[in-house]
Protein backbone atom coordinates (compact mmCIF):
# COMPACT_ATOMS: atom_id res chain seq x y z
CA UNK A 1 0.00 0.00 0.00
CA UNK A 2 2.78 2.37 -0.85
CA UNK A 3 0.46 4.98 -2.31
CA UNK A 4 -1.52 5.31 0.88
CA UNK A 5 -0.57 8.28 3.02
CA UNK A 6 1.42 7.69 6.18
CA UNK A 7 -0.82 9.78 8.45
CA UNK A 8 -4.45 9.36 7.47
CA UNK A 9 -6.93 12.18 7.64
CA UNK A 10 -9.20 11.95 10.66
CA UNK A 11 -12.93 12.06 11.23
CA UNK A 12 -14.81 12.41 14.48
CA UNK A 13 -18.43 11.19 14.49
CA UNK A 14 -20.82 12.49 17.13
CA UNK A 15 -24.23 10.87 17.26
CA UNK A 16 -26.34 9.56 20.10
CA UNK A 17 -27.46 6.52 18.07
CA UNK A 18 -25.10 3.57 18.41
CA UNK A 19 -26.04 2.14 15.03
CA UNK A 20 -25.19 5.41 13.27
CA UNK A 21 -21.83 5.60 15.02
CA UNK A 22 -21.05 2.01 14.15
CA UNK A 23 -21.99 2.12 10.50
CA UNK A 24 -20.35 5.46 9.78
CA UNK A 25 -17.19 4.46 11.63
CA UNK A 26 -16.98 1.32 9.57
CA UNK A 27 -17.75 3.15 6.34
CA UNK A 28 -15.01 5.72 6.84
CA UNK A 29 -12.44 3.22 8.12
CA UNK A 30 -12.79 1.38 4.84
CA UNK A 31 -11.96 4.66 3.20
CA UNK A 32 -8.70 4.67 5.14
CA UNK A 33 -9.53 7.48 7.54
CA UNK A 34 -8.73 7.54 11.23
CA UNK A 35 -12.19 7.43 12.79
CA UNK A 36 -13.50 7.73 16.32
CA UNK A 37 -17.02 8.23 17.55
CA UNK A 38 -18.56 10.01 20.53
CA UNK A 39 -22.06 9.55 21.88
CA UNK A 40 -22.63 13.11 23.01
CA UNK A 41 -21.19 16.60 23.11
CA UNK A 42 -19.25 16.14 26.32
CA UNK A 43 -17.49 13.05 25.04
CA UNK A 44 -16.82 14.86 21.79
CA UNK A 45 -15.20 17.77 23.63
CA UNK A 46 -13.04 15.36 25.61
CA UNK A 47 -11.99 13.65 22.40
CA UNK A 48 -10.68 16.93 21.07
CA UNK A 49 -7.58 16.10 23.12
CA UNK A 50 -6.94 13.22 20.75
CA UNK A 51 -7.17 15.57 17.81
CA UNK A 52 -6.62 17.51 15.75
CA UNK A 53 -9.55 16.13 13.78
CA UNK A 54 -9.81 17.12 10.17
CA UNK A 55 -13.54 16.66 10.09
CA UNK A 56 -16.40 16.23 12.55
CA UNK A 57 -19.78 14.82 11.60
CA UNK A 58 -22.33 16.01 14.10
CA UNK A 59 -25.86 14.85 14.63
CA UNK A 60 -27.82 18.05 14.85
CA UNK A 61 -30.32 16.64 17.33
CA UNK A 62 -28.92 15.07 20.42
CA UNK A 63 -30.09 14.97 24.02
CA UNK A 64 -28.20 17.60 26.01
CA UNK A 65 -26.11 19.86 23.88
CA UNK A 66 -27.30 20.14 20.28
CA UNK A 67 -25.06 19.70 17.27
CA UNK A 68 -25.41 23.40 16.56
CA UNK A 69 -24.07 24.36 19.97
CA UNK A 70 -21.38 21.70 19.78
CA UNK A 71 -20.26 23.10 16.44
CA UNK A 72 -19.55 26.43 18.12
CA UNK A 73 -17.58 24.80 20.89
CA UNK A 74 -15.52 22.61 18.61
CA UNK A 75 -14.68 25.66 16.53
CA UNK A 76 -13.54 27.41 19.71
CA UNK A 77 -11.11 24.59 20.39
CA UNK A 78 -10.00 24.21 16.76
CA UNK A 79 -11.20 26.89 14.41
CA UNK A 80 -9.99 24.90 11.42
CA UNK A 81 -12.04 21.78 12.08
CA UNK A 82 -14.40 20.97 9.21
CA UNK A 83 -17.99 20.34 10.25
CA UNK A 84 -20.65 18.35 8.47
CA UNK A 85 -24.07 18.24 10.08
CA UNK A 86 -26.20 15.13 10.04
CA UNK A 87 -29.86 15.96 10.16
CA UNK A 88 -33.26 14.36 9.83
CA UNK A 89 -35.58 15.85 7.23
CA UNK A 90 -37.42 17.61 10.03
CA UNK A 91 -34.46 19.74 11.03
CA UNK A 92 -33.15 21.00 7.72
CA UNK A 93 -33.78 24.54 8.91
CA UNK A 94 -31.30 24.22 11.73
CA UNK A 95 -28.90 22.64 9.26
CA UNK A 96 -29.10 25.82 7.25
CA UNK A 97 -28.35 27.71 10.46
CA UNK A 98 -25.30 25.47 10.91
CA UNK A 99 -24.08 26.44 7.45
CA UNK A 100 -24.39 30.09 8.35
CA UNK A 101 -22.24 29.44 11.38
CA UNK A 102 -19.51 27.88 9.32
CA UNK A 103 -20.42 24.22 8.79
CA UNK A 104 -19.10 22.92 5.48
CA UNK A 105 -22.32 21.16 4.53
CA UNK A 106 -25.06 18.93 5.85
CA UNK A 107 -26.44 15.53 4.98
CA UNK A 108 -29.91 14.18 5.70
CA UNK A 109 -30.50 10.81 7.30
CA UNK A 110 -30.53 8.29 5.76
CA UNK A 111 -27.50 9.55 3.87
CA UNK A 112 -26.94 8.88 0.19
CA UNK A 113 -23.53 7.14 0.20
CA UNK A 114 -22.50 8.66 -3.10
CA UNK A 115 -23.33 12.12 -1.77
CA UNK A 116 -21.56 11.40 1.50
CA UNK A 117 -18.28 10.32 -0.04
CA UNK A 118 -18.21 13.37 -2.29
CA UNK A 119 -19.06 15.82 0.47
CA UNK A 120 -16.43 14.35 2.74
CA UNK A 121 -13.70 14.44 0.13
CA UNK A 122 -14.65 18.00 -0.83
CA UNK A 123 -14.61 19.11 2.79
CA UNK A 124 -11.20 17.55 3.34
CA UNK A 125 -9.82 19.08 0.17
CA UNK A 126 -11.07 22.51 1.09
CA UNK A 127 -9.58 22.18 4.53
CA UNK A 128 -6.23 21.23 3.07
CA UNK A 129 -6.24 24.28 0.83
CA UNK A 130 -7.14 26.59 3.71
CA UNK A 131 -4.42 25.09 5.89
CA UNK A 132 -1.82 25.44 3.18
CA UNK A 133 -2.77 29.09 2.83
CA UNK A 134 -2.50 29.65 6.55
CA UNK A 135 0.90 27.98 6.65
CA UNK A 136 2.03 30.15 3.81
CA UNK A 137 0.85 33.30 5.54
CA UNK A 138 2.53 32.31 8.77
CA UNK A 139 5.78 31.76 6.95
CA UNK A 140 5.51 35.13 5.30
CA UNK A 141 4.43 37.21 8.25
CA UNK A 142 6.32 35.19 10.85
CA UNK A 143 4.12 36.79 13.45
CA UNK A 144 2.09 35.02 16.14
CA UNK A 145 -0.30 32.24 15.38
CA UNK A 146 -4.01 32.38 16.05
CA UNK A 147 -3.66 35.20 18.55
CA UNK A 148 -3.43 38.88 17.81
CA UNK A 149 -1.25 39.59 20.79
CA UNK A 150 1.54 41.15 18.82
CA UNK A 151 4.52 42.96 20.12
CA UNK A 152 8.14 42.65 21.07
CA UNK A 153 8.40 45.30 23.75
CA UNK A 154 9.49 44.40 27.26
CA UNK A 155 6.07 45.46 28.50
CA UNK A 156 4.14 43.05 26.28
CA UNK A 157 6.56 40.21 26.99
CA UNK A 158 5.85 40.78 30.66
CA UNK A 159 2.10 40.59 30.05
CA UNK A 160 2.40 37.37 28.07
CA UNK A 161 4.67 35.91 30.72
CA UNK A 162 2.17 36.69 33.48
CA UNK A 163 -0.72 35.36 31.42
CA UNK A 164 1.10 32.10 30.80
CA UNK A 165 1.97 31.70 34.45
CA UNK A 166 -1.52 32.28 35.72
CA UNK A 167 -3.15 30.21 32.95
CA UNK A 168 -1.94 26.97 34.49
CA UNK A 169 -3.61 27.79 37.81
CA UNK A 170 -7.32 28.15 38.44
CA UNK A 171 -6.91 31.57 40.04
CA UNK A 172 -9.25 34.48 39.45
CA UNK A 173 -7.56 37.02 37.21
CA UNK A 174 -8.13 40.74 36.95
CA UNK A 175 -7.02 42.48 33.79
CA UNK A 176 -6.35 46.20 34.05
CA UNK A 177 -5.88 48.53 31.15
CA UNK A 178 -7.37 51.28 29.05
CA UNK A 179 -10.08 50.37 26.61
CA UNK A 180 -8.80 48.93 23.37
CA UNK A 181 -5.63 47.49 24.88
CA UNK A 182 -6.79 43.96 24.10
CA UNK A 183 -7.98 42.73 27.49
CA UNK A 184 -10.32 40.20 25.91
CA UNK A 185 -7.46 38.80 23.81
CA UNK A 186 -5.40 38.28 26.95
CA UNK A 187 -8.41 36.65 28.65
CA UNK A 188 -8.80 34.29 25.71
CA UNK A 189 -5.09 33.54 25.72
CA UNK A 190 -5.23 32.65 29.42
CA UNK A 191 -8.22 30.39 28.81
CA UNK A 192 -6.60 28.79 25.77
CA UNK A 193 -3.52 27.91 27.82
CA UNK A 194 -5.49 26.54 30.77
CA UNK A 195 -6.80 23.06 31.50
CA UNK A 196 -10.27 24.40 30.79
CA UNK A 197 -9.51 25.07 27.15
CA UNK A 198 -11.76 22.31 25.83
CA UNK A 199 -14.69 24.03 27.45
CA UNK A 200 -16.00 27.43 26.47
CA UNK A 201 -14.91 30.89 27.44
CA UNK A 202 -18.02 33.01 27.80
CA UNK A 203 -17.56 36.76 27.54
CA UNK A 204 -19.99 39.22 29.12
CA UNK A 205 -19.73 42.97 28.79
CA UNK A 206 -21.13 44.07 32.13
CA UNK A 207 -21.05 47.72 31.19
CA UNK A 208 -23.13 47.47 28.07
CA UNK A 209 -26.52 46.46 29.47
CA UNK A 210 -29.01 47.49 32.12
CA UNK A 211 -29.05 45.86 35.52
CA UNK A 212 -32.09 43.65 34.89
CA UNK A 213 -30.83 42.56 31.51
CA UNK A 214 -27.40 41.79 32.94
CA UNK A 215 -29.04 39.72 35.66
CA UNK A 216 -30.83 37.47 33.19
CA UNK A 217 -27.75 37.43 30.94
CA UNK A 218 -25.61 36.12 33.76
CA UNK A 219 -28.05 33.82 35.54
CA UNK A 220 -30.57 32.95 32.83
CA UNK A 221 -34.31 33.06 33.26
CA UNK A 222 -37.33 30.81 33.32
CA UNK A 223 -40.12 31.07 30.82
CA UNK A 224 -42.43 33.89 31.83
CA UNK A 225 -39.97 35.35 34.36
CA UNK A 226 -40.66 38.79 32.91
CA UNK A 227 -42.46 40.31 29.96
CA UNK A 228 -40.80 39.02 26.82
CA UNK A 229 -39.34 35.92 28.46
CA UNK A 230 -41.07 33.51 26.13
CA UNK A 231 -38.52 30.77 26.51
CA UNK A 232 -36.34 29.47 29.26
CA UNK A 233 -32.84 30.69 28.71
CA UNK A 234 -29.54 29.56 30.15
CA UNK A 235 -27.34 32.21 31.69
CA UNK A 236 -23.69 32.86 30.99
CA UNK A 237 -22.56 31.27 34.26
CA UNK A 238 -24.39 28.09 33.25
CA UNK A 239 -22.89 28.15 29.77
CA UNK A 240 -19.43 28.62 31.20
CA UNK A 241 -19.67 25.29 33.06
CA UNK A 242 -16.27 23.63 32.85
CA UNK A 243 -14.77 26.71 31.24
CA UNK A 244 -14.11 30.36 31.91
CA UNK A 245 -16.36 33.38 32.30
CA UNK A 246 -14.88 36.68 31.18
CA UNK A 247 -16.55 39.65 32.88
CA UNK A 248 -15.57 42.80 31.04
CA UNK A 249 -16.10 46.26 32.52
CA UNK A 250 -16.65 44.78 35.95
CA UNK A 251 -16.22 48.23 37.51
CA UNK A 252 -19.50 49.40 36.05
CA UNK A 253 -21.97 47.06 37.72
CA UNK A 254 -24.65 48.15 40.17
CA UNK A 255 -24.55 47.53 43.92
CA UNK A 256 -27.24 44.88 43.63
CA UNK A 257 -25.32 43.02 40.95
CA UNK A 258 -22.17 43.27 43.04
CA UNK A 259 -23.90 41.35 45.84
CA UNK A 260 -25.20 38.69 43.46
CA UNK A 261 -21.86 38.34 41.76
CA UNK A 262 -20.04 37.93 45.05
CA UNK A 263 -22.44 35.16 46.03
CA UNK A 264 -22.12 33.19 42.79
CA UNK A 265 -18.34 33.49 42.75
CA UNK A 266 -18.15 32.21 46.32
CA UNK A 267 -20.68 29.39 46.07
CA UNK A 268 -20.60 28.55 42.34
CA UNK A 269 -24.35 28.23 42.69
CA UNK A 270 -27.25 30.40 41.58
CA UNK A 271 -30.86 30.31 40.45
CA UNK A 272 -32.31 31.52 37.19
CA UNK A 273 -34.40 34.68 37.24
CA UNK A 274 -37.94 33.60 38.02
CA UNK A 275 -36.80 30.12 39.01
CA UNK A 276 -36.15 28.24 42.23
CA UNK A 277 -33.89 25.38 41.17
CA UNK A 278 -30.34 25.81 42.42
CA UNK A 279 -27.91 25.43 39.55
CA UNK A 280 -24.25 24.59 40.03
CA UNK A 281 -21.58 25.54 37.58
CA UNK A 282 -17.82 25.05 37.60
CA UNK A 283 -16.24 28.15 36.12
CA UNK A 284 -13.13 30.24 36.36
CA UNK A 285 -13.44 34.02 36.57
CA UNK A 286 -11.38 36.45 34.54
CA UNK A 287 -12.53 40.04 34.84
CA UNK A 288 -11.39 43.29 33.35
CA UNK A 289 -11.77 46.96 34.03
CA UNK A 290 -10.37 50.30 33.00
CA UNK A 291 -11.75 51.99 36.12
CA UNK A 292 -9.79 52.99 39.17
CA UNK A 293 -11.38 50.29 41.35
CA UNK A 294 -9.35 51.26 44.41
CA UNK A 295 -10.86 54.73 44.29
CA UNK A 296 -14.30 53.20 43.76
CA UNK A 297 -13.81 51.03 46.85
CA UNK A 298 -12.78 54.12 48.81
CA UNK A 299 -15.80 56.14 47.79
CA UNK A 300 -18.08 53.16 48.43
CA UNK A 301 -19.32 52.58 44.91
CA UNK A 302 -17.56 49.20 44.68
CA UNK A 303 -17.83 46.60 47.41
CA UNK A 304 -14.57 45.89 49.15
CA UNK A 305 -15.32 42.17 49.62
CA UNK A 306 -15.99 41.73 45.91
CA UNK A 307 -12.86 43.71 45.12
CA UNK A 308 -10.74 41.29 47.13
CA UNK A 309 -12.49 38.28 45.58
CA UNK A 310 -11.65 39.53 42.10
CA UNK A 311 -8.29 41.15 42.64
CA UNK A 312 -6.33 37.95 43.27
CA UNK A 313 -3.90 38.09 40.39
CA UNK A 314 -3.62 41.25 38.35
CA UNK A 315 -2.26 41.64 34.86
CA UNK A 316 -1.84 45.24 33.73
CA UNK A 317 -1.83 45.84 30.02
CA UNK A 318 0.08 49.00 29.12
CA UNK A 319 -1.46 51.52 26.75
CA UNK A 320 -0.03 51.56 23.27
CA UNK A 321 1.71 54.93 23.71
CA UNK A 322 3.81 53.36 26.48
CA UNK A 323 5.07 50.67 24.17
CA UNK A 324 5.60 52.59 20.95
CA UNK A 325 8.18 50.10 19.72
CA UNK A 326 5.29 47.66 19.21
CA UNK A 327 3.42 50.01 16.90
CA UNK A 328 5.36 49.09 13.72
CA UNK A 329 4.90 45.37 14.48
CA UNK A 330 1.19 45.78 15.13
CA UNK A 331 0.70 48.01 12.11
CA UNK A 332 2.47 45.44 9.92
CA UNK A 333 0.39 42.68 11.46
CA UNK A 334 -2.89 44.44 10.72
CA UNK A 335 -1.72 45.39 7.24
CA UNK A 336 -1.03 41.72 6.55
CA UNK A 337 -4.34 40.68 8.08
CA UNK A 338 -6.38 43.04 5.91
CA UNK A 339 -4.28 42.41 2.82
CA UNK A 340 -5.28 38.76 3.16
CA UNK A 341 -8.93 39.51 3.90
CA UNK A 342 -9.25 42.05 1.11
CA UNK A 343 -7.02 40.15 -1.34
CA UNK A 344 -5.03 43.31 -1.87
CA UNK A 345 -1.35 43.32 -2.75
CA UNK A 346 -0.45 46.10 -0.34
CA UNK A 347 2.87 44.86 0.97
CA UNK A 348 4.20 47.75 3.03
CA UNK A 349 3.53 50.91 4.96
CA UNK A 350 5.77 53.70 3.72
CA UNK A 351 8.17 55.35 6.10
CA UNK A 352 6.28 58.58 6.30
CA UNK A 353 3.02 56.88 7.22
CA UNK A 354 4.78 54.66 9.74
CA UNK A 355 6.29 57.73 11.38
CA UNK A 356 2.85 59.19 11.89
CA UNK A 357 1.54 55.93 13.32
CA UNK A 358 4.42 55.71 15.76
CA UNK A 359 4.07 59.32 16.91
CA UNK A 360 0.33 59.30 17.47
CA UNK A 361 -0.85 58.80 21.06
CA UNK A 362 -3.58 56.21 20.35
CA UNK A 363 -6.16 57.00 23.04
CA UNK A 364 -8.17 54.07 21.64
CA UNK A 365 -5.08 51.83 21.76
CA UNK A 366 -4.71 48.67 19.67
CA UNK A 367 -8.35 48.70 18.62
CA UNK A 368 -8.01 52.21 17.24
CA UNK A 369 -4.81 51.25 15.46
CA UNK A 370 -6.57 48.31 13.85
CA UNK A 371 -9.46 50.51 12.72
CA UNK A 372 -7.07 53.00 11.20
CA UNK A 373 -5.18 50.26 9.36
CA UNK A 374 -8.38 48.69 8.10
CA UNK A 375 -9.52 52.03 6.71
CA UNK A 376 -6.12 52.71 5.19
CA UNK A 377 -6.15 49.32 3.51
CA UNK A 378 -9.46 50.15 1.87
CA UNK A 379 -7.98 53.36 0.43
CA UNK A 380 -4.48 52.10 -0.25
CA UNK A 381 -3.25 51.67 -3.80
CA UNK A 382 -0.78 48.78 -4.06
CA UNK A 383 1.99 48.34 -3.22
CA UNK A 384 2.12 50.62 -0.13
CA UNK A 385 0.06 52.52 2.42
CA UNK A 386 0.81 56.27 2.14
CA UNK A 387 0.39 58.89 4.85
CA UNK A 388 -2.48 60.39 2.82
CA UNK A 389 -4.49 57.24 3.50
CA UNK A 390 -4.41 57.79 7.24
CA UNK A 391 -7.16 59.85 8.86
CA UNK A 392 -6.03 63.46 8.67
CA UNK A 393 -6.50 64.03 12.41
CA UNK A 394 -3.88 61.38 13.00
CA UNK A 395 -1.22 63.28 11.16
CA UNK A 396 -2.13 66.55 12.83
CA UNK A 397 -2.71 65.09 16.29
CA UNK A 398 0.64 63.43 16.23
CA UNK A 399 1.79 66.40 18.28
CA UNK A 400 0.31 68.89 15.90
CA UNK A 401 2.69 68.13 13.13
CA UNK A 402 2.08 68.15 9.42
CA UNK A 403 3.46 64.96 8.00
CA UNK A 404 6.01 66.58 5.74
CA UNK A 405 6.78 69.60 7.88
CA UNK A 406 10.15 70.67 9.19
CA UNK A 407 8.85 69.99 12.70
CA UNK A 408 8.63 66.27 11.96
CA UNK A 409 12.26 66.25 11.01
CA UNK A 410 13.18 68.29 14.07
CA UNK A 411 11.26 66.01 16.39
CA UNK A 412 12.91 62.92 14.94
CA UNK A 413 16.36 64.51 15.25
CA UNK A 414 15.82 65.56 18.87
CA UNK A 415 14.47 62.15 19.79
CA UNK A 416 17.32 60.36 18.06
CA UNK A 417 19.99 62.40 19.84
CA UNK A 418 18.26 61.97 23.19
CA UNK A 419 18.14 58.24 22.70
CA UNK A 420 21.74 58.16 21.58
CA UNK A 421 22.93 59.97 24.70
CA UNK A 422 20.68 57.97 26.98
CA UNK A 423 18.66 61.14 27.63
CA UNK A 424 21.63 63.07 28.88
CA UNK A 425 20.18 66.56 28.51
CA UNK A 426 23.43 68.52 28.58
CA UNK A 427 25.17 66.33 26.03
CA UNK A 428 22.10 66.27 23.80
CA UNK A 429 21.80 70.04 23.94
CA UNK A 430 25.48 70.31 23.02
CA UNK A 431 25.15 68.04 20.03
CA UNK A 432 21.99 69.80 18.86
CA UNK A 433 23.66 73.11 19.43
CA UNK A 434 20.82 74.56 21.51
CA UNK A 435 20.64 75.46 25.20
CA UNK A 436 19.14 73.15 27.78
CA UNK A 437 15.98 75.20 28.29
CA UNK A 438 15.24 75.10 24.58
CA UNK A 439 15.79 71.37 24.63
CA UNK A 440 13.35 70.95 27.53
CA UNK A 441 10.82 73.03 25.63
CA UNK A 442 11.19 70.87 22.57
CA UNK A 443 10.83 67.69 24.65
CA UNK A 444 7.56 69.04 26.04
CA UNK A 445 6.35 70.35 22.69
CA UNK A 446 6.89 67.03 20.95
CA UNK A 447 5.70 64.95 23.86
CA UNK A 448 8.95 62.99 24.02
CA UNK A 449 9.30 60.52 26.84
CA UNK A 450 12.27 58.76 28.32
CA UNK A 451 11.82 55.11 27.16
Amino acid at each position, binding site marked *: *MTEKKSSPQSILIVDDELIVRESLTKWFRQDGYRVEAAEDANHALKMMKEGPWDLALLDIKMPGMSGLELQKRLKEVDKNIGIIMITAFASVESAVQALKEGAFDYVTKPIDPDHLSHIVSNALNQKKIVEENIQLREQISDIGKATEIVGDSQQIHKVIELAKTVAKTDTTVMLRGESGTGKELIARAIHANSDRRYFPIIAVNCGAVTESLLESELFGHEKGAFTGAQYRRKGKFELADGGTIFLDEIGNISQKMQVQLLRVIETKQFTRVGGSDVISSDFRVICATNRDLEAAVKDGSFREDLYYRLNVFTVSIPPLRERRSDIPLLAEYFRGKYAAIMHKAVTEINANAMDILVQYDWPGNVRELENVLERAMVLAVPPAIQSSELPFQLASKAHGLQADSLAVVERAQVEMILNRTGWNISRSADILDIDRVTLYNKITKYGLKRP
Partner: protein
Amino acid sequence: MRSILIVPIRPVDHAELTALVTPLSNAFEIPVSIEESNYLDPAFAFDSYRNQFNSTSLITALLDRYPAQSGKIIGITAVDLFVPVLTYVFGEAQLDGQAAVLSTFRLREDLYGLEPNPKLEHIRLLKEAVHELGHTYGLIHCHDPECVMHSSTSAEEVDVKGKNFCGGCEKFLRGL
Protein backbone atom coordinates in the same frame (compact mmCIF):
# COMPACT_ATOMS: atom_id res chain seq x y z
CA MET B 1 -8.43 -23.16 5.36
CA ARG B 2 -7.65 -20.75 2.55
CA SER B 3 -10.75 -20.63 0.34
CA ILE B 4 -13.71 -18.51 -0.63
CA LEU B 5 -17.31 -19.64 -0.30
CA ILE B 6 -20.07 -17.93 -2.25
CA VAL B 7 -23.39 -18.18 -0.41
CA PRO B 8 -26.53 -17.50 -2.46
CA ILE B 9 -29.01 -15.28 -0.62
CA ARG B 10 -32.36 -15.71 -2.33
CA PRO B 11 -33.51 -14.36 -4.66
CA VAL B 12 -30.39 -14.46 -6.80
CA ASP B 13 -29.50 -15.59 -10.34
CA HIS B 14 -27.46 -18.75 -9.87
CA ALA B 15 -25.81 -18.48 -13.27
CA GLU B 16 -24.30 -15.14 -12.32
CA LEU B 17 -22.71 -16.71 -9.28
CA THR B 18 -21.32 -19.62 -11.26
CA ALA B 19 -19.69 -17.14 -13.64
CA LEU B 20 -17.77 -15.65 -10.70
CA VAL B 21 -16.03 -18.82 -9.58
CA THR B 22 -13.10 -18.92 -12.02
CA PRO B 23 -12.27 -15.19 -12.14
CA LEU B 24 -12.45 -14.90 -8.32
CA SER B 25 -10.23 -17.91 -7.96
CA ASN B 26 -7.73 -16.29 -10.32
CA ALA B 27 -7.86 -12.96 -8.50
CA PHE B 28 -7.13 -14.38 -5.05
CA GLU B 29 -5.25 -17.51 -6.18
CA ILE B 30 -7.30 -19.80 -3.93
CA PRO B 31 -10.19 -22.24 -4.43
CA VAL B 32 -13.67 -20.77 -4.77
CA SER B 33 -16.90 -22.72 -4.36
CA ILE B 34 -20.64 -22.09 -4.16
CA GLU B 35 -22.80 -23.19 -1.25
CA GLU B 36 -25.16 -25.49 -3.16
CA SER B 37 -27.31 -26.97 -0.43
CA ASN B 38 -27.99 -24.29 2.07
CA TYR B 39 -29.24 -20.99 0.66
CA LEU B 40 -29.83 -18.09 3.01
CA ASP B 41 -33.34 -16.67 3.29
CA PRO B 42 -32.96 -12.93 4.00
CA ALA B 43 -36.55 -12.38 5.21
CA PHE B 44 -35.37 -11.72 8.79
CA ALA B 45 -33.26 -8.78 7.57
CA PHE B 46 -36.14 -7.11 5.77
CA ASP B 47 -37.08 -3.57 6.84
CA SER B 48 -40.66 -3.00 5.74
CA TYR B 49 -40.43 0.75 6.32
CA ARG B 50 -37.48 1.10 3.95
CA ASN B 51 -38.42 -1.84 1.74
CA GLN B 52 -34.78 -2.92 1.80
CA PHE B 53 -32.65 -5.54 3.53
CA ASN B 54 -30.22 -4.78 6.32
CA SER B 55 -26.77 -5.86 5.13
CA THR B 56 -25.25 -5.84 8.60
CA SER B 57 -27.87 -8.37 9.77
CA LEU B 58 -27.03 -10.56 6.81
CA ILE B 59 -23.33 -10.52 7.69
CA THR B 60 -24.18 -11.47 11.26
CA ALA B 61 -26.28 -14.40 10.01
CA LEU B 62 -23.43 -15.62 7.80
CA LEU B 63 -21.01 -15.47 10.72
CA ASP B 64 -23.44 -17.43 12.88
CA ARG B 65 -23.74 -20.11 10.27
CA TYR B 66 -20.08 -20.65 9.35
CA PRO B 67 -17.34 -21.23 11.90
CA ALA B 68 -14.39 -18.88 11.85
CA GLN B 69 -11.95 -21.32 10.30
CA SER B 70 -13.98 -21.99 7.17
CA GLY B 71 -12.34 -19.28 5.03
CA LYS B 72 -13.85 -16.15 3.52
CA ILE B 73 -17.58 -16.05 2.86
CA ILE B 74 -19.43 -13.76 0.50
CA GLY B 75 -23.22 -13.75 0.42
CA ILE B 76 -24.68 -12.52 -2.87
CA THR B 77 -28.27 -11.45 -3.45
CA ALA B 78 -30.51 -9.64 -5.92
CA VAL B 79 -32.36 -7.68 -3.22
CA ASP B 80 -31.52 -4.07 -2.34
CA LEU B 81 -29.27 -3.65 0.72
CA PHE B 82 -28.87 -0.87 3.26
CA VAL B 83 -27.11 0.03 6.47
CA PRO B 84 -29.27 2.15 8.78
CA VAL B 85 -27.59 5.51 8.27
CA LEU B 86 -27.18 5.19 4.50
CA THR B 87 -29.83 5.10 1.78
CA TYR B 88 -28.27 2.02 0.20
CA VAL B 89 -25.04 0.05 -0.11
CA PHE B 90 -23.78 -2.09 -2.96
CA GLY B 91 -22.33 -4.39 -0.40
CA GLU B 92 -20.73 -4.54 2.99
CA ALA B 93 -17.64 -6.30 4.28
CA GLN B 94 -15.90 -6.85 7.57
CA LEU B 95 -12.59 -5.04 7.27
CA ASP B 96 -9.93 -7.70 7.87
CA GLY B 97 -12.69 -10.15 8.80
CA GLN B 98 -14.44 -13.21 7.49
CA ALA B 99 -17.63 -12.18 5.76
CA ALA B 100 -19.07 -9.87 3.13
CA VAL B 101 -22.41 -9.41 1.40
CA LEU B 102 -23.07 -8.00 -2.03
CA SER B 103 -26.15 -7.06 -4.02
CA THR B 104 -26.66 -7.14 -7.78
CA PHE B 105 -29.65 -4.79 -7.43
CA ARG B 106 -27.93 -1.49 -8.22
CA LEU B 107 -25.50 -2.99 -10.69
CA ARG B 108 -28.28 -3.67 -13.21
CA GLU B 109 -28.81 -1.42 -16.21
CA ASP B 110 -32.60 -1.72 -16.11
CA LEU B 111 -32.64 -0.02 -12.70
CA TYR B 112 -31.47 3.11 -14.51
CA GLY B 113 -34.00 2.72 -17.35
CA LEU B 114 -31.44 1.20 -19.73
CA GLU B 115 -31.43 -2.02 -21.77
CA PRO B 116 -30.18 -5.03 -19.77
CA ASN B 117 -26.51 -5.71 -20.51
CA PRO B 118 -25.56 -9.09 -18.98
CA LYS B 119 -21.91 -8.82 -19.95
CA LEU B 120 -21.45 -5.41 -18.33
CA GLU B 121 -23.43 -6.49 -15.28
CA HIS B 122 -21.23 -9.56 -14.86
CA ILE B 123 -18.11 -7.41 -14.90
CA ARG B 124 -19.61 -5.03 -12.36
CA LEU B 125 -20.54 -7.90 -10.06
CA LEU B 126 -17.05 -9.37 -10.39
CA LYS B 127 -15.39 -6.04 -9.58
CA GLU B 128 -17.57 -5.53 -6.52
CA ALA B 129 -17.06 -9.13 -5.35
CA VAL B 130 -13.28 -8.71 -5.62
CA HIS B 131 -13.60 -5.34 -3.88
CA GLU B 132 -15.64 -6.58 -0.90
CA LEU B 133 -13.45 -9.67 -0.51
CA GLY B 134 -10.44 -7.34 -0.69
CA HIS B 135 -11.83 -5.59 2.38
CA THR B 136 -12.05 -8.91 4.24
CA TYR B 137 -8.33 -9.29 3.56
CA GLY B 138 -7.73 -5.92 5.21
CA LEU B 139 -7.52 -3.71 2.15
CA ILE B 140 -8.94 -0.19 2.47
CA HIS B 141 -10.02 2.06 -0.37
CA CYS B 142 -7.27 2.84 -2.82
CA HIS B 143 -6.51 6.24 -4.39
CA ASP B 144 -5.54 4.65 -7.72
CA PRO B 145 -8.62 5.20 -9.92
CA GLU B 146 -7.82 2.06 -11.94
CA CYS B 147 -7.58 -0.17 -8.88
CA VAL B 148 -10.49 -2.45 -8.01
CA MET B 149 -10.20 -1.21 -4.41
CA HIS B 150 -11.04 2.31 -5.51
CA SER B 151 -14.22 3.42 -3.76
CA SER B 152 -17.32 3.40 -5.93
CA THR B 153 -20.77 4.40 -4.83
CA SER B 154 -22.40 4.55 -8.27
CA ALA B 155 -22.56 2.09 -11.17
CA GLU B 156 -20.63 4.53 -13.37
CA GLU B 157 -17.79 4.63 -10.87
CA VAL B 158 -17.72 0.83 -10.89
CA ASP B 159 -17.38 0.93 -14.68
CA VAL B 160 -14.55 3.46 -14.55
CA LYS B 161 -12.26 1.43 -12.31
CA GLY B 162 -10.49 -1.74 -13.39
CA LYS B 163 -11.13 -5.29 -12.20
CA ASN B 164 -7.58 -5.88 -10.93
CA PHE B 165 -5.62 -4.76 -7.88
CA CYS B 166 -3.03 -2.06 -8.38
CA GLY B 167 0.59 -2.87 -7.58
CA GLY B 168 0.34 -1.61 -4.01
CA CYS B 169 -2.85 -3.47 -3.14
CA GLU B 170 -1.57 -6.62 -4.85
CA LYS B 171 1.59 -6.50 -2.76
CA PHE B 172 -0.38 -6.00 0.44
CA LEU B 173 -2.59 -8.97 -0.43
CA ARG B 174 0.27 -11.35 -1.30
CA GLY B 175 2.22 -10.23 1.72
CA LEU B 176 -0.38 -11.74 4.02
